[in-house]
């Protein structure tokens, strides 16, 4: 962060990777070589991306700090700023303000088996932790990934999914709501798909991110399987603005999602009135 908490740093787009028809990965690096060296973040943190003249919006950092050099953001074109982000090409400039927010609990989960459940564009924030865990493999137990999207073309990180599938120490499952001619994998929504896999809750922590309805049903499924709320962790997407706990938008109870989150356990969320009402 700069001394002025509202002042972004200028970065350049180094690579654009289309993921789905409306979603692309932007690989960026800071123009200031010193900042490139010093910028430190934890998996699960986010940044405010700026298109000057259009505005700013919060996007989770999809890369892991264990992979040096470049920052990745996976952006779906859904609004004014994200549409403008989608006009960016390699070499174009943008503003990056961050890192902001808390992070996935990388230390607390050491030695645990890990279950990741992602839906659609909910995978990128999980991927920062997945990459972190794979790069620190001996600190963590078994890794299970369950991912789903509306259709085969809505799956993000198609190449990386294949890599995960091929890794001997990762148990990878993927499903789509509706298949097509190219798809010979599982078909069905994530929550029942997860129930069929029936991952044991023993010594396990589950991480989930996706559309609100998916998260709701996934959590119900996990609780049925015997997972404790403290062992179900998510990252919340609410309308953040300033990212620094001042503008008053993203509060749940006395927490600001941008400052105290975006990562929360369901045990925390259940103790906050209204936190799960969206």
């Amino acid at each position, binding site marked *: 962060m700069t001394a002025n908490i509202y002042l972004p740093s200028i970065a350049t787009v180094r690579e654009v990777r289309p993921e789905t028809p409306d979603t692309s990965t932007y690989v960026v690096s800071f123009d200031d070589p010193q900042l490139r060296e010093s910028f430190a973040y934890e998996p699960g943190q986010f940044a405010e991306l*700026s298109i000057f003249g259009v505005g700013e919006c919060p996007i989770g950092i999809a890369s892991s700090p264990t992979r040096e050099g470049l920052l990745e953001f996976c952006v779906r074109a859904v609004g004014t700023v994200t549409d403008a982000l989608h006009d960016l090409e390699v070499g174009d400039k943008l503003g990056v303000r961050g890192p902001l927010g808390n992070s996935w609990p990388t230390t607390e989960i050491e030695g645990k088996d890990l279950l990741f459940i992602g839906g659609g564009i909910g995978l990128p924030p999980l991927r920062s932790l997945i990459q972190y865990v794979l790069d620190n493999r001996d600190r963590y137990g078994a890794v299970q990934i369950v991912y789903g999207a509306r259709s085969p073309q809505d799956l993000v990180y198609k190449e990386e999914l294949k890599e995960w599938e091929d890794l001997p120490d990762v148990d990878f499952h993927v499903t789509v709501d509706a298949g097509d001619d190219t798809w010979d994998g599982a078909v069905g929504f994530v929550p029942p798909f997860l129930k069929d896999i029936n991952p044991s809750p023993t010594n396990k922590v589950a991480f989930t991110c996706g559309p609100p309805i998916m998260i709701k049903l996934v959590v119900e499924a996990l609780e049925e399987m015997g997972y404790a709320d403290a062992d179900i962790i998510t990252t919340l997407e609410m309308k953040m603005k300033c990212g620094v706990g001042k503008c008053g938008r993203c509060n749940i109870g006395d927490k600001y999602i941008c400052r105290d989150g975006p990562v929360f356990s369901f045990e925390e969320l259940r103790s906050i009135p209204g936190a799960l009402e969206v």
Partner: protein
Amino acid sequence: MDRKKISKADLGRWLDTIAGKYELIGPTEDEGIIQFGPVQSSAELTLEYANSLIPPKSLFFPPVESLFAFRKRGEEIQLEETKPLQQDRVIFGIRNCDVGSLSLLDRVFCDDLEDSYYRERRERTTLIALACPTPPRSSCFCTTFGIDPLSPAGSDILLTDVGDVYLVDAVTDKGEELVALGEGLFAPLTEGEEKELQPPPVDMPQLDVRELRERLEALWEDEYWEKLSLPCLGCGICTYVCPTCHCFDISDVGSTSDGVRYRCWDSCMYSDFALMVSGENPRPTKRERTRNRYFHKFSTFPSRYGTGYACVGCARCLVHCPGGVEITEVIKDISAKEGVSDR
């Protein structure tokens, strides 16, 4: 510094001396509306006022302010931070409710992610508070929240009108510097005056807020919020005139090659305040927005910042609400023994 006095005739001379060295800001009257603004001379100030329409928080956290300018030059983007102040300032005539609100806003803007714009304005401003006239306005209730309208707490100097003179309490170094500027205008009090020159005690209705937070927190699901929100027009005036509200929006103006990023006050009472691009809204109706406002004032702000309640009893919201929603009635309702009363 010991208590001093200054004659009413000399007050203007002192303020004019200050205006020669600082930007002097004080209460002015325009068609019946009192507002705090910069003046060149003390003659522009009014001393006949209860309080301003817009709280002087606007002098620290302006309704609209530029954060930085951006310019595209070839491939490069240049950012230029906006300087919040050109000159050190003195605010004359601030009331203690509004002084109290600044200590609450300090918690928001000067936490470990410090807002440099607010911070610089606070550091470069000296506050001369003016003790409230007695009797206070019938709507005032600052003492409910522990604010003493006759105390120098939170300001640099307190002036108290006791007839022909003002009592002068300079309680900080910044305050003493200003008093030093008025050489010959201030006199110590004689022993007799120390006893005699006292403002009349403030008599203000006091609301019971001892268990307000606990009682409020038990009412999250109560139908009260629905009822309370019925007369609300969603106009946001309660937040606009509130000295403790701090919600804002950030936006860009200009083109992609030349423009300004600014912030402006926003209101949690607006329907699109928390609306997300997905169409989801965590506070979709007036019921949730009204509840959020009172929870913020009486539960989540004190809990987050370890302060008292985020209300200073200035009564601006209840005076200006077109729907007649009165925060004092809300406090009474919440504090009513058997749940909430049927309004």
